């Protein structure tokens, strides 16, 4: 790729991909930005003109905003804690030599292939349902009253569903990281007098720290925008209205496109802040 001709050829050949990507990204982005400054309410007269920063101010001052932020954080932090902790444990387990390793690994990854809507419905109907759910049967077997999971523990239910989906991702990344750990380091630590837990804490965890950060950042970006799991389970009821769900309600239920778009712009900014950290860390990883 040194000559002038080859460089311009490369540019020409890359152009379709770049243009497609830019179009895909820029058109919706610019439309969102545009609508966020308009007073656009399709069922109440359509585009009612320029709104300045009114939409932005209204979005954050609405009584639903802060509860939505808190709900989002609870779900993101909860799911992160579960996936990272269980992910590390599962990765260590899967790293042990055992019979049927390949099959077990595929089984562990399987939930990642189930689409969010389906996994939400699966959990809602097969596990959490208070009449026919697996948990209900289990409770009844022990003589207890079945729990109305989605009503009584809506956050826990959603966190469990989301964690179930994202645990395979965390496990997979952490497993590859664990496999790159030099076994002589563990043996050296063993000779140095570090028992199992201390080896885990002083050798394994530091070795995994970068992979854990990557898992946390990537998951954060995706968890900030979870929607289907909430839509098919609680539909935003019982306080589970997240930021994404709030935007959806503003646009489709209140038919206020302008207000929803302003919320969307906040979400973009938030996701980009996380993305900047992510790129820095991944970039560092590639350098090393």
């Amino acid at each position, binding site marked *: 790729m040194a000559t002038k001709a080859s460089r311009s050829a490369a540019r020409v050949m890359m152009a379709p991909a770049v243009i497609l990507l830019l179009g895909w990204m820029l058109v919706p982005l610019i439309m969102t930005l545009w609508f966020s400054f308009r007073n656009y309410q399709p069922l109440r007269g359509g585009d009612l003109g320029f709104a300045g920063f009114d939409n932005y101010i209204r979005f954050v001052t609405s009584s639903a905003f802060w509860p939505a932020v808190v709900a989002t954080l609870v779900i993101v932090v909860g799911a992160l804690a579960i996936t990272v902790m269980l992910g590390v444990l599962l990765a260590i387990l899967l790293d042990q030599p055992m019979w049927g390793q390949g099959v077990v690994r595929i089984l562990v990854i399987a939930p990642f292939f189930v689409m969010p809507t389906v996994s939400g419905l699966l959990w809602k109907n097969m596990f959490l349902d208070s009449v026919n759910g697996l948990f209900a049967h289990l409770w009844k077997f022990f003589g207890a009253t079945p729990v109305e999971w989605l009503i009584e523990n809506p956050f826990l239910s959603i966190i469990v569903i989301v964690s179930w989906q994202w645990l395979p991702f965390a496990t997979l990344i952490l497993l590859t990281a664990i496999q790159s750990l030099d076994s*002589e380091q563990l*043996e050296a630590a063993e*000779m140095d*007098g*570090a028992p199992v837990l201390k080896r885990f804490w002083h050798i394994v965890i*530091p*070795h995994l720290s970068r992979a854990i950060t990557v898992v946390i950042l990537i998951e954060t970006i995706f968890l900030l925008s979870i929607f289907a799991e909430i839509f098919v389970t609680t539909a935003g009821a019982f306080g589970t209205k997240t930021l994404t769900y709030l935007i959806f309600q503003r646009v489709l239920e209140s038919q206020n496109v302008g207000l929803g778009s302003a919320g969307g712009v906040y979400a973009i900014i938030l996701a980009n802040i996380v993305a900047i950290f992510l790129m820095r860390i991944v970039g560092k990883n590639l350098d090393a």
Partner: protein
Amino acid sequence: MGRIVLDKVSKRFGDVEVIPPIDLVIEDGEFAVFVGPSGCGKSTLLRLIAGLEDVTSGQIRIDGNDATNLAPAQRRLAMVFQSYALYPHMTVRKNIAFPLRMAKLDKAEIDKRVANAAAVLNLTDYLDRRPGQLSGGQRQRVAIGRAIVREPAAFLFDEPLSNLDAALRVGMRLEISELHKRLATTMVYVTHDQVEAMTMADKIVVLRAGHIEQVGSPLELYRTPRNIFVAGFIGSPRMNFIEGAEAAKHGAHTIGIRPEHIAVSSEAGPWSGVVAVSEHLGSDTFFHIHDSGLAETLTVRADGEVGFRHGDRVYLTPRDDQFHRFDAKGLRIE
């Protein structure tokens, strides 16, 4: 103190007997070298002593105490690994201090011992660096530092120099030998390089396929190898082996003669041959000689000034008192 006794120690991996029952004594303060070709079980033997592998049968005693079932950390042994196995996320200081922290020594004592080790190993200027910022030789020294701060009963080295370049290897060889003289602690050293074994060891243990072929001082092994394998393994270049009529004259199935015990001349000698390759090292010259009718190739050492070239016919005179005689089983005949 650090007297290590292996009493009928054996190791199996499943059905494969890697090490048949072995008896071996390593005296306190001794520098013992396990040497052998790759796959001979020398690293496994070291790991058995370290406790990183369980013995299948037999007993390991350290200073008279049964250590067979002790955890590695309780055997008071320190190991230096081939890959150095430094902890990459810790500074040199923390790496060296790690075993002391695990032993819960107080802060002042840890600092003192780390400073001492760093001074001994010329690492004082590098204490705050991470292993990734050090050269191979420095990493090696950190690994040794991590071993000496524990003041162990014995040091175990698993091919510690094989990742270094040739010049550094010679330097580190000297440093480890000096360290041994200064600390007077037992050292067990595994290598496949017979030069390292010859130069460093008080006692060499030659292993093949898990069996101990011979144990002895470097010169014992050089002068009186017990069998053909040891004779061929110890000494560089390799000993020449001659079979057939020439061996029968000496009443043996095979006779061996080292390259340095054959004189070479252009005029006369009992053997003759054609120079195939001559290797000039400056101080010495090695001739590889074909068509002698005795063996496919004979290697001969001569002074650096001797200048035969490819294709020259030369005459060889072996020193009669330096023949090694072996029977049909390859065992030495006295």
